[in-house]
């Protein structure tokens, strides 16, 4: 666009006006920047099944309609990590707390230039810190939620006040634990007051024995939330390790469930987005992450999946009673009673997952 040159040849008034509008547009954006609506290109995102739906990147879609976004699906944190480690070419990927340190240690993630993110100041500092490794911002925190004990109030009328409920013989055959080694270590650490970041090998042996004994009480280990929710609906499962998305879903369906506030505190997890080291799509990836923090996207996370979003305007705008209860928004003390998942080291990951495999292999 060369407005000055074209003006020379324009005599008629409306043509002049047209040119002025054009030049005004040109002045608003930096000379090299293409307007968002005209931006083209393609971006590949490695995400979890469900988050590939347009609802969860709707702000980006609306702002950059001509950019193609391709999704690859990861089945778990381990799966996503293994894919990135094996040289997956996704520009953006979505790991969760506990699994962040390795990406930095193995040189798989770029540092984020947060000055490029217009929505960054809407993210509270305690969330920003979750995405910092070795003092640098490597990840943009995005979704979060609680983990606690979900239980059927009709089957357990006295309620649940401790993580030890998952080991309570009173509920034999009606307990469901998440199929995850680090998750099991977390629960045991809460019950026994172990420091989760410094589990000794003696403690790990005790944890293994504890969960092998728990097998007699455990109906099944759940991998996906629908499986767990089915167990609650049918009345087979009375108490389970669960994320609050399941709580909100079942509560909304009228299943008599409650979400415990255990005396050891709830657990909390945060999902973050990282940008692959060496991507040629850095500018577009940053724009994607910025729009991921947008309000419309955040509202969809809250309303469709019942998870929290890191844009605080989204959270303070929640009015739905079920959701408010699920996030315990009216309990001003809830975040102080929450333990954030610490990052695992590679040794812990290998030892804890092997411990869990032995639990599952045990007779």
């Amino acid at each position, binding site marked *: 666009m060369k407005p000055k040159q074209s003006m020379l040849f324009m005599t008629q008034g409306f043509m002049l006006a047209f040119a002025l509008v054009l030049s005004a547009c040109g002045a608003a954006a930096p000379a090299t920047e293409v307007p968002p609506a005209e931006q083209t290109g393609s971006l590949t995102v490695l995400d979890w099944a469900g988050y590939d739906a347009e609802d969860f990147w709707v702000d980006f879609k609306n702002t950059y309609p001509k950019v193609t976004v391709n999704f690859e699906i990861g*089945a*778990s944190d*381990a*799966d996503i*990590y*293994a894919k990135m*480690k*094996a*040289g997956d070419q996704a520009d953006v990927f979505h790991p969760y707390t506990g699994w962040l340190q390795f990406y930095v*240690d*193995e040189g798989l993630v770029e540092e984020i230039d947060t000055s490029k993110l217009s929505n960054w100041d809407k993210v509270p500092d305690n969330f920003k810190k979750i995405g910092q490794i070795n003092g640098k911002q490597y990840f943009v925190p995005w979704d979060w939620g609680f983990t606690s004990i979900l239980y059927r109030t009709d089957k357990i009328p006295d309620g649940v006040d401790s993580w030890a409920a998952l080991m309570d013989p009173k509920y034999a*055959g009606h307990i469901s634990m998440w*199929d*995850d*080694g680090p998750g099991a270590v977390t629960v045991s650490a809460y019950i026994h007051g172990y420091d989760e970041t410094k589990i000794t090998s003696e403690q790990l042996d005790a944890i293994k024995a504890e969960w092998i004994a728990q*097998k007699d009480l*455990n*109906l*099944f*280990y759940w*991998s996906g939330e629908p499986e767990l929710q089915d167990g609650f609906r*049918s*009345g*087979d499962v009375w108490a389970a390790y669960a994320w609050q998305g399941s709580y909100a879903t079942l509560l909304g369906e009228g299943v008599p469930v409650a979400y415990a506030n255990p005396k050891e505190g709830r657990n909390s997890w945060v999902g973050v987005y990282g940008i692959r080291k060496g991507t040629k799509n850095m500018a577009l990836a940053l724009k994607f992450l910025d729009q991921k923090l947008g309000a419309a996207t955040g509202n969809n996370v809250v309303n469709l999946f019942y998870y929290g979003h890191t844009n605080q305007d989204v959270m303070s705008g929640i009015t739905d009673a079920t959701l408010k209860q699920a996030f315990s928004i009216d309990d001003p003390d809830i975040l102080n009673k929450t333990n954030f998942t610490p990052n695992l080291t*590679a040794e812990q*990951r*290998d030892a804890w*997952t*092997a411990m*869990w*495999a*032995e639990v*599952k*292999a*045990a*007779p």
Partner: protein
Amino acid sequence: MDRRATFWFIYLPPLLWLSLFFVLPVLLMAAFSFRPDMRGDLLKLWVPTLAQYASVAETGSYWRLLGISALTALGIGISAVVLAYPLAYFLALRAGRRAGLYLVLLLIPFWTSYLMRVMAWKILLGTEGVLNSFLIYLGIIQEPLTALLYNRTAVILTLIYVWVPFAALPILAALQRVDTSLFEAAADLGARPLRQFTRITLPLSLPGVFAAFFMVFIPTIGEYVTPLLVGGSRGFLYGNIIQDFFTKAANWPLGSALSMIMLLATMVLVVLATRLVDWRQLFE
């Protein structure tokens, strides 16, 4: 085309396919099983170590589970063959002109996905499932039976169900090759039906029976989907542990070592079985 050109024309595509997508991955997995851990560049050469095998060797529960899985697969293989034999026998020798129709009926379950069929067993065996509701309706039980689902028995039942139609096919093929004039000859010589079966039908169909057994036995040792769906906390098979190290632990070296051990164990079992049974005698 001369014979050599014809040979390569026919065999090159499957050879390439199998080398690329079967032999190469297995070799890669074998190589990974000698890796110390997942740290560092995956494609850079590493110093081979037996650390993964050592860690498997000292974990008794993995070996125990391998044994249990092999025994489970043996039981499932035998049950599926025993149940499939009458089906195949009927189709080959008694169904007559309607054999084609019955064969289609036998194969109808395969029109739906494997997962759907396994999920159906959850509906059958669950506490609010078909079986429990029926028994409560009849007044035989008051409270639903919880022992039906989420244990190894449920895994075994489901797998036998899944495999029976598969197992029927090689037996059917073997029975269809039996020359029916042999039965007439046997009858002329005074052999009663039972004797005809044990002296003619069964021996001649044995290659199909063994093929069916191994078709069930080998994949069942490594099975992991069915235990995940209906096995509960105590129904896991060896394949589940392998799957966990790949998808839940990001520990490919240990998962690879466990896979190689299973591969070797299965091969040893199959070789032993073929030694016990003289194959050449079967085919003559």
